[in-house]
């Protein structure tokens, strides 16, 4: 039905032993009966033992690559005649996208990127072109992973804003709520039956249960605590484990750093100016004519945490962490961001 309306549908599916978002044509492609097991540095899919479609927590990516592409051309230049360069902007193709199964943490991250790319000064034309075309079909998260802590950041597990349609999965179907005109018009085309009081009760029970999460972050601006602990010995201790690989920043739905690169054509007729995701864990990120501002891993990890939990508040009026837990799951050595923050800011480890 969405395809008939001109949407390309993007939905979760099992790819390379993980839940990934990609083009989807049929409901059978959804990860029905699949569940996941996540822990620091650990991700495994397993059989859920029931027939639900969304009985899993987020995989490595969801919305971020759809609006802020891992690599995209910004413009190209050509010097067909000597003494002249012709510049031409390159914008993403306009393509209405319906994204099925978006979680509240990712909507919170999308709103941060909206501020960054569209509301603070210059509007980013590539981000805008993709963002404008989104139809978001959210799913209330009933199966958070052990690495999730969205309750403590205030970003989940229920979605309260930013979606067009919202689904909550129950044993006997879905409760569907529409939030926008686009969402209402899609909903009107569905053959739905009225929700029963028992189903609403089941929904409330499911969401209350989903709030029981093991991990949490102090839900406040930690600028002061971090500034007081710039030389905490824990930074070096983390650096002994951290590989500086940048997995955390790639999977983080709020990380926006990117570098610009030039790709000249081999025949010299034109050259394309790209941007691609970058990471504050890379050597080049802080390079400036002969000097690297953050040559050590301890300084890079400190930069990443201070930005997320401290200076982000100055920039965006909220923390840069939405509690999705991806940086914990996808860290190859299992560094737990929430625990490190507690140790550095509060002097406490998990029990």
């Amino acid at each position: 039905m969405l395809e008939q309306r001109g949407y390309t549908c993007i939905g979760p599916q099992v790819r390379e032993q993980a839940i990934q978002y990609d083009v989807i044509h049929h409901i059978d492609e959804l990860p029905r009966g699949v569940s996941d097991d996540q822990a620091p540095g650990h991700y495994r899919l397993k059989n859920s033992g029931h027939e639900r479609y969304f009985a899993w927590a987020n995989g490595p990516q969801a919305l971020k690559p759809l609006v802020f592409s891992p690599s995209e051309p910004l413009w190209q230049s050509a010097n067909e005649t000597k003494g002249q360069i012709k510049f031409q902007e390159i914008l993403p193709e306009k393509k209405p996208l319906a994204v099925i199964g978006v979680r509240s943490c990712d909507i919170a991250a999308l709103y941060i990127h909206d501020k960054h790319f569209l509301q603070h000064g210059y509007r980013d034309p590539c981000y805008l072109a993709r963002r404008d075309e989104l139809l978001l079909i959210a799913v209330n998260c009933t199966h958070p992973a052990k690495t999730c802590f969205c309750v403590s950041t205030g970003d989940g597990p229920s979605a309260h804003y930013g979606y067009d349609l919202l689904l909550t999965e129950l044993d006997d179907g879905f409760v569907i709520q529409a939030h926008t005109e686009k969402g209402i018009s899609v909903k009107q085309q569905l053959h739905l039956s009225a929700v029963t009081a028992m189903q609403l009760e089941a929904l409330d029970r499911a969401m209350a249960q989903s709030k029981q999460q093991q991990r949490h972050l102090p839900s406040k601006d930690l600028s002061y605590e971090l500034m007081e602990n710039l030389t905490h010995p824990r930074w070096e201790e983390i650096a002994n484990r951290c590989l500086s690989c940048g997995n955390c920043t790639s999977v983080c739905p709020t990380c926006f750093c990117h570098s610009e690169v030039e790709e000249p054509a081999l025949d010299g007729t034109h050259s394309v100016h790209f941007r691609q995701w970058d990471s504050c864990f890379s050597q080049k990120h802080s390079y400036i004519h002969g000097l690297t501002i953050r040559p050590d891993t301890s300084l890079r990890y400190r930069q990443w945490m201070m930005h997320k939990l401290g200076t982000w508040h100055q920039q965006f009026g909220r923390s840069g962490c939405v509690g999705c837990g991806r940086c914990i799951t996808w860290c190859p050595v299992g560094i737990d961001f929430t625990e490190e923050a507690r140790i550095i800011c509060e002097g406490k480890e998990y029990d």
Partner: protein
Amino acid sequence: MTNPYLPMQAEVIERIQESPNMYTLRLRFTDPATQATYSFEPGQFNMLYLYGVGEIPISIVSDPKDEHIIDHTIRAVGRVTNAMSSLNVGDVIGVRGPYGRGWPLLEAEQRDVVVVTGGLGCAPVVSVLNYIANRRERFGKLNIVQGVKHTCDFIWRERYDHWRELPDTRVLLAADDGEPIWPFHIGRVTDLFTQMEFNREHVIVMLCGPEGMMRVVVKYMLEQGVAGNKIWLSMERNMQCGIGHCGHCQYGGKFVCKDGPVFSYEELKPLFGKRGF
């Protein structure tokens, strides 16, 4: 909506070799309408693009009232700046800007002015000095202090000679290691500080250059009783977009490219001089 990433074509009108590895490109947009509407403040920068090589941020050194030409003085230190050094008159490059917040020149009017630079640091303040020189009566005592490592790094000697002739103006120059013909101070630029003349209640201090040098000047000025919000510094960090999106230039919560590059010491104080920011 105009695309903020898209450069405009500009032509090299003149190229000046300032020192063995420093050169000035005098540019003009090839589209007359673009040139006519272009305006900037001293302390701001442009992103310069060399075809097939890449983009770099470079501060603007010409006078903002000069409608016909935009000057950039560049040191050949990296891939793009080295490649750009082979540009000649008539060649074209891409330019977009201006970006960032410049020097507080309106606030500086009627006040004494101290400008301290080190190394190539003088480039971002040359437009300030030209600006003040052309409007000398609006400012109080003027102190121009410049330190270089080697005497060969000292460029624009004739400009300094010109500034030295301005009323109520002191030009203090130092080189760490000087040749016999160097007529100025040999040693640290800090040795010259006591020769500056200014009223600490009515002064604006502008600094540009290596952060170690700026730290020393800030410390000295604070000891003299100059308020932190009257000391201004031009900061440098890795910049790729120039418009606050790419994230490289972050200094704590500030984006150097759009919140700076010129900041008051008061704004930088919590992090200034701390390693890793």
